[in-house]
């Protein structure tokens, strides 16, 4: 399904393009509008959607398993609030003069999420044996609220045009327009996914409860650190690409579990693929269904995902 969506999505858009013309080598690239629409506008956008959607969904799975809380999401521990703070600071204080052709915005949002991640890490290190993961969860909520308050504080200082830009950024956008914006965050993403790939069994056990996991020889402390750090890294990289796209990280894991069951060996890859294709579809709708001006993808994810999730739930319980 993911493959189908990703192949078809670039073909659909507000304007009809001819593929044969897009791939026609005899026309110079600079003159070939179809090729430019395909390679410059659509393909990077679809790739960005796959990465962002997949990353948020996997991070959501990890957070929900470790915190044993169905409401946990990539933002629960304040990582995307940190990223937002980084972006808002850059926008408000006009620090975003381009460095070597790349906007400082993704760098700053990544730095912001790394800062929040540092705090999360310290919390998980400080957490002694026996303290419940709820404490960690509460710590995350407090951090998130604190960062959100800082955000508003910075925005109040800013000009109204800055506030407008900040709000735009927070709505999320996948129109990256260049491959560099995708490739750079891909590095931490791959590292994080590799780390998470070692964990499915641990996640299964941990979601049964810590004592159960420990009795089966899992070093919960260590696994938790690896999991939280890599999930946060994933979130941070995803936010730096597309902004804090809501909903994917909290609901996609549930949708996937409703479909494939609770085995994390299945849930993790399924979340990666489903999250990716879900966001590609949402973005497709965002850019086509609302006229030429489009709509922020963040508004569409919940608009589509909410009813879909409710439908799945009802079908399951009937």
């Amino acid at each position, binding site marked *: 399904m993911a493959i189908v969506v990703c192949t078809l999505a670039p073909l659909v858009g*507000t304007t009809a393009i001819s593929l044969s013309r897009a791939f026609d080598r005899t026309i110079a690239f600079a003159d070939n509008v179809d090729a430019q629409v395909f390679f410059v506008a659509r393909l990077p956008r679809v790739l960005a959607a796959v990465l962002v959607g997949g990353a948020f969904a996997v991070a959501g799975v990890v957070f929900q398993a470790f915190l044993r809380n169905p409401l946990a999401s990539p933002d629960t521990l304040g990582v995307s609030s940190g990223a937002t703070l980084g972006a808002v600071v850059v926008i408000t204080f006009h620090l*975003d*003069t381009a460095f070597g052709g790349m*906007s*400082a915005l993704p760098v700053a949002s990544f730095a912001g999420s790394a800062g929040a991640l540092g705090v999360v890490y310290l919390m998980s290190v400080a957490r002694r044996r026996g303290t419940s993961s709820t404490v960690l969860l509460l710590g995350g909520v407090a951090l998130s609220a604190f960062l959100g308050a800082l955000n508003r504080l910075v925005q109040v200082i800013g000009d*109204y045009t800055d506030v407008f830009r900040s709000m735009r950024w927070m709505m999320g*956008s996948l129109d990256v*327009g260049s491959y560099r914006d995708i490739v750079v965050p891909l590095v931490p993403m791959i590292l994080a996914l590799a780390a998470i790939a070692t964990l499915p069994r641990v996640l299964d056990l941990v979601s049964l409860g810590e004592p159960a996991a420990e009795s089966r020889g899992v070093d919960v402390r260590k696994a938790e650190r690896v999991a939280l750090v890599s999930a946060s890294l994933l979130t941070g990289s995803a936010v730096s690409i597309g902004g804090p796209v809501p909903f994917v990280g909290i609901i996609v894991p549930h949708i996937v579990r409703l479909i494939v069951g609770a085995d994390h060996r299945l849930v993790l890859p399924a979340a990666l693929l489903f999250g990716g294709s879900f966001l590609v579809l949402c973005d497709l709708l965002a850019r086509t269904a609302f006229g030429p001006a*489009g709509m922020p993808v963040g508004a569409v994810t919940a608009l589509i995902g909410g009813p879909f999730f409710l439908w799945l739930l009802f079908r399951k319980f009937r």
Partner: protein
Amino acid sequence: MAAVQKVPLTRRGALIVLALAIATIVPVRSVRLQADRVSPAKAGHYGDADGTPRRHEDTKPSHQPGNDLRAFVPSWRFQTATAVEARRIVSIIPATTEMLFAMGAGDRLVAVGSYDRYPPDVEKLPRVGALLDPNVERILALKPDLVVLYGTQTDLRTQLERAGVPFYPYVHRGLPDVTGTIRSLGARVGVAAQANALADRIEQQLARIRARVARSPKPKTLLVFGREPGTLRGIDASGGVGFLHDMLETAGGVNVLADVKQQSVMMSSELVLTRAPEVIVELRYGRGDPVPRDDLKAWDALASVPAVKNRNILVLQGEEFVVPGPRVADATMKLAAVLHPLAFR
């Protein structure tokens, strides 16, 4: 009533009904406009502080075409039109603050908004917040007899109503509304003559620009007023309504987004490619918005766009481009000059 039901509405009948409808609407409207015209003269009875009678101000009828634009301004704008002239004004909107200064009422301002930067005299005045954060306490403490605010600031309006402070709600729309607002605000404040003269001057200037570009070919233009530096992300451009769009059309450009009936349009790179503008004009207006040369290179990714191919990406810097105040004509002139360099040589 019964007769109407029995006889089907013939073409003639329909015409009569239409004529009746017009006959009832027209006097109502003209009465409203007259009332508005009369009010400042009435205010003149009270006279200025220096005792100069101001009655003569409005006796001269204005023949400027833009004068009827008032008809487009909703009547609620004139709800306070019967009040006496204002001597202690708080204006929290950059555009209206500029208007008040330009119509010679700058000395009546006792406070301005946080973002008002022009003319330089505003720096001497206290600031009392703006659209999102008006400081009601400070506004009330200044004992204003008129507060100029955004029509959407309902909380502030309720609070002022409760405190019995008159206000003038401002709405930001097309270019004709700029002179419309100047006239009605001038009448409300009690400087109608100067305000009308200012509005006439702006309309004449705009008409001259229109005449000057009338015979030049009109380039398909994308008017960008925001973009993430160094990339093509977060492009905000003027859609087919609002004063930026009107300025562009007056300046002899064809807006490539004219069919999108929004003031601001979030542009995707795909939309830029398919609309294929011949000219891209970027407006910069923030506090010292830097314009590094490299920044415009971001557009190179869209090499098939005629404006990119022919290096027709122009940057205009200045706050006058985004403040729909009395400087709109100057801003339109600058825009016309870059779109039609030959006509303005």
